[in-house]
């Protein structure tokens, strides 16, 4: 186990040495802090509508980022929105990476029919316009946080399955897998004991990619009015502001959610790019590590 932690520490140090990785981690760190400390950051209930006098107020000491067209506090909505983004990102990444890895592992290891079916399904998904498919699924299932997670997961797992499968194809030919088979290791032991550890770095990179895509998809779906109105996300805020028709005169309402969406997606994209750079063997040679 120590070797794994040493490897992980080594990986983290390299990641922090990479400029993009550092900026990415800082941006994501800010959002995670906001999500964890949301109740302690001077927030009120983000759903609580105000009286007629509280509508569309400019920023003040009481409402740090003003209020929206129902008199709800924008600062609280922005801070609590981070929880929704992170929940969607993490849960979707967990679901898609676990299922994608499992399917990719089985398909790559056994080959034959299973592989054929997987390749066809993945090809099919690759050909489809993803956003319209998500839109019709979300419209039919109805707006809720868990439906959105379900919709994004259903459409995103094939990417991971495909990447994992091609990695498994190259790993399973390696001599130590053959050696393990010779001393009597069963298929399950080979898959989990010998092949899976070689797929872990890839799963990590895929997880970051999936978090990025999930957060992005949620923002777009919510902006298009398919979001969960009982849990206001940044995409929902933009939807309300856009539909209200007063967004030009209320920059305190429209600006923060746009900023947050850009911050979280740019953060994860930079981190993802840095991770793939670090995992790419050529990078270490180039840097002389």
């Amino acid at each position, binding site marked *: 186990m120590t070797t794994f932690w040493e490897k992980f520490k080594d990986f983290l140090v390299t990641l922090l040495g990479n400029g993009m990785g550092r900026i990415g981690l800082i941006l994501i760190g800010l959002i995670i802090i906001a999500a964890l400390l949301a109740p302690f950051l001077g927030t009120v209930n983000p759903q609580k509508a105000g009286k007629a006098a509280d509508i569309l107020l400019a920023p003040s000491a009481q409402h740090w980022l003003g209020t929206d067209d129902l008199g709800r506090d924008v600062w609280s909505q922005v801070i609590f929105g981070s929880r929704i983004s992170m929940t969607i990102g993490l849960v979707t990444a967990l679901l898609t990476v676990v299922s994608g890895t499992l399917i990719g592992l089985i398909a790559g290891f056994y080959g034959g029919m299973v592989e054929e079916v997987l390749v066809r399904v993945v090809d099919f998904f690759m050909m489809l316009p993803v956003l319209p498919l998500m*839109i019709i699924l979300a419209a039919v299932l109805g707006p809720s946080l868990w439906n959105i997670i379900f919709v994004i997961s259903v459409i995103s797992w094939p990417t991971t399955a495909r990447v994992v499968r091609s990695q498994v194809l190259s790993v399973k030919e390696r001599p130590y897998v053959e050696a393990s088979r010779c001393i009597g290791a069963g298929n399950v032991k080979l898959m989990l004991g010998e092949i899976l550890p070689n797929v872990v770095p890839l799963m990590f990179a895929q997880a970051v990619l999936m978090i990025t895509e999930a957060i992005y998809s949620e923002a777009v779906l919510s902006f298009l009015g398919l979001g969960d109105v009982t849990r206001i996300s940044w995409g929902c805020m933009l939807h309300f502001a856009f539909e209200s028709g007063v967004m030009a005169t209320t920059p305190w309402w429209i600006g923060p959610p746009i900023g947050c969406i850009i911050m979280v997606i740019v953060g994860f994209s930079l981190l993802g790019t840095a991770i793939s750079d670090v995992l790419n063997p050529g990078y270490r040679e180039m840097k002389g590590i």
Partner: protein
Amino acid sequence: MKLARFTFRKATAAILTIFIILSVNFVIFRMAPGDPVRMMFKDPRVSAKQLELQREKFGLDKPLGGQFLAYLNQLAHGDLGISFWQKRPVTEVIAQRIPNTLILVLTALAMSTILGIILGALAGWVSGTKLDTFILSASITLYSIPAFAMGIILLLVFSYYISVFPLGGIVTPASGYTGFAYIGDVLWHMCLPAFSIILWYIGEYVILTRSSMLDVLGQDYITTARAKGIKESRVLRKHALRNALLPVITLTGINVGFAVAGVIEAETVFSWPGVGKLIYDAVSKRDYPLLQGVFLVFAVSVVLANLIIDLIYGFVDPRIRVGTQ
């Protein structure tokens, strides 16, 4: 002979995909909770017998298999049903919007491909320099900004705060423009929506062209070309870029489906009367027949675009024909 077989295989795959899309489209909307007839006639005074008659009229009393065949038959006749919201045939509603979307998509994609390739090739050529780092990080950042967020920023800045561009739509209302003035007006309205797609989409081409360029620049024939004393600019254009472009072109096909997202977002923000705006309207009006129709149009056109691009590559590059076997 090989080319014919390649064409046949690709075409069969596309037809099969379209059939699966039709089935998915059929199944998803049958999954919808609630009774479609009840949704159309929300008035509680409508009697059970009248509802039954409506069900019969729409064929909803038949078993699912029969409904699916009826659906396919209707599609074969170009019938996508009646839009709840517009009370007109869905086919008609969508057909009106298609030209508007095509102008926007083709302009935006052509511009981002060309600019992306130029910037990516430049970054690859000067790799390791400050310029390269700048182009690369700017690309990743722009690529991460959703087209609707970029669209809202552009709209606020260039239409509200500095009024240089129109607020939305495709022509100035009641302007009565004809001929060149009309075309100019449309192009004027198209600037911001196209720009928000280009800014979002260009990054992908920059990143890809750059990495492909780096691969090619490491090849022996580039060293040979330089050793022969060929001018650098000629090595870049004739030797490096030409070969670096192949993987970039291959990816254009895969990306068509992806580009649809940018179109939906940009059309929504700028009220561009295209098919993408239609999907937004269909969602907000809960107009299921229209939603189903728009999805079908997007999915089928993406599959067809993919097929055409695949066939062109197979024709241009014989290695692709062999590679996919």
